[in-house]
């Protein structure tokens, strides 16, 4: 396809996305807004897991931190959510930075376990400090705009999603992005060519925490209710499943995964009991048979002709 054709199509698609509120009814607009939230969450988690190889289990917890900080500030201090949202994001970033500095030098499994512990601690504290967080009852928070409009919210989410994805794309293309990738591929090699792997990881971790915190705040001020469920492991599972099904380590993967799973879960609503099971099974199948996810499959189909199979000396054991 020629470049000009692509640009034209791009403009058309952009136009359609922008027009979505006029094409969808209220309910599907609601689904679209939630989808955008998951797009942000999965994309920013992917920055960690897909690009620097750190499987963090605290991403949902960071979103919850952002949401609760923003929610509590806006309820108790009556500050506009537009300002508290930023506070939430900053606090999530600070937590991310702290956690990153504390455990990233160990990396690998230790990072996963520490983030898991952190996530559970956040979850338990939110549930138990009901005087501040209202526990499982959920915290009612004001609307971001002061009035309720799904269309307006959709555009805000869309704008934020585009900015974040654009930022992530730039980041991945930049020197930093190359550093991320080299950290993922070979830590030893990365450090031998002078990349401070710890610093790179801490940067990635902080950025993704900040994004999660911001997204969490937006989500909370949209639903008008924040509950501890936001920081639960099943929420984390959704983010993880979306990234994996879409394709880890690619920019479009998490987006495709989030959209696919959100829409799928609407279609299988009648099988409410089974949808987590189904997502789990799909994820396992994807890992087993199509490790590249949706994006990987797409690339395989479109590029299979040009890419001859290479047979190389391989290691039977990876370690």
């Amino acid at each position, binding site marked *: 396809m020629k470049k000009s054709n692509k640009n034209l199509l791009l403009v058309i698609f952009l136009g359609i996305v922008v027009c979505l509120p006029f094409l969808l009814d209220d309910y599907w607009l609601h689904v679209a807004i939630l989808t955008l939230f998951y797009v942000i969450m999965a994309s920013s988690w992917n920055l960690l897991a897909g690009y620097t190889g750190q499987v963090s289990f605290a991403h949902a917890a960071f979103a919850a931190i952002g949401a609760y900080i923003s929610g509590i500030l806006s309820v108790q201090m009556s500050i506009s959510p537009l300002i508290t949202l930023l506070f939430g994001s900053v606090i999530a970033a600070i937590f991310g930075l702290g956690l990153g500095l504390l455990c990233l030098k160990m990396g690998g499994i230790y990072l996963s376990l520490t983030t898991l512990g952190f996530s559970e601690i956040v979850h338990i504290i939110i549930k138990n400090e009901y005087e501040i967080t209202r526990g499982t009852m959920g915290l009612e928070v004001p609307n971001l705009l002061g009035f309720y409009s799904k269309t307006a919210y959709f555009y805000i989410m869309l704008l934020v999603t585009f900015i974040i994805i654009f930022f992530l794309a730039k980041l991945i293309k930049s020197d930093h992005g190359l550093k991320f990738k080299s950290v993922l591929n070979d830590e030893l090699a990365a450090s031998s060519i002078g990349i401070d792997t710890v610093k790179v990881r801490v940067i990635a971790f902080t950025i993704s925490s900040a994004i999660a915190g911001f997204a969490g705040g937006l989500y909370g001020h949209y639903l008008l209710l924040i509950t501890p469920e936001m920081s639960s492991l099943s929420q984390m599972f959704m983010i993880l499943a979306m990234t994996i099904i879409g394709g880890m380590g690619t920019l479009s993967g998490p987006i495709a995964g989030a959209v696919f799973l959100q829409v799928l879960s609407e279609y299988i609503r009648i099988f409410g009991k089974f949808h987590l099971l189904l997502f789990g099974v799909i994820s396992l199948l994807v890992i087993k048979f199509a490790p590249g996810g949706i994006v990987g499959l797409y690339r395989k189909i479109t590029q299979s002709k040009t890419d001859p199979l290479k*047979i*190389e*000396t*391989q*290691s*039977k054991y990876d370690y």
Partner: protein
Amino acid sequence: MFEVIKLNIFRGEIHVLWDVSLNVEEGEIVAVIGANGSGKSTLIETILGLLIPKSGNIKFFNKEISNQPSYEIARMGIAWVPEGRRIFKNMSVYENLEIGSYPRRARVNFAKNIKWIYELFPILKTRANKSAGLLSGGEQQMLAIGRALMLEPKLLLVDELSLGLAPKITQEVFEVIKELRRRKITVLLVEQNVDLALKNSDRCYILETGKVTLSGKSSELIKNKEIRKAYLGL
């Protein structure tokens, strides 16, 4: 009995071994020497079935083994004394030797073999119930050799025996290799220490950047001026 024929190995995109061929006859001690990065460890890993060759054959008693998994290769009678010893530190000395005799063929002769190992390395007998991680470097090397010998090997691959050992201890350990020659155990010695390797082997191959550049009787090679200059600094 043991042949490597025109072996080509890639690691990722990098061509590491180029048409490497060598052979070892029964009862011989053959050394492969080369500097760091010459492809020695790649050669060992391929023989042990850890890497799949792009082309070439490895034959052991005329049987192709390059497509066999590691444990089958071990069961056929190729034992390995790894570089850096790599003993099972969380287990006792005795247990290490037990694991060495895991293949059924060797297990039936366990009592006989362990007696022999204890004769060879009396120190291992006195430390039998001690955790292997607590042994000194030399003792660990002895344990690594003992463990490999428990397998009743037909071919013993010895990888960088001298690495990280005091010269005196290295000498002691090489005495054992000589003892093996008397016992008619075939040994393939991969060494960085050229002097030691040449003095303790029958024949020798020299590996440089993935190619065999020179081979011959050790007793002759040791007199070779080029080698003396390049490797022994004389």
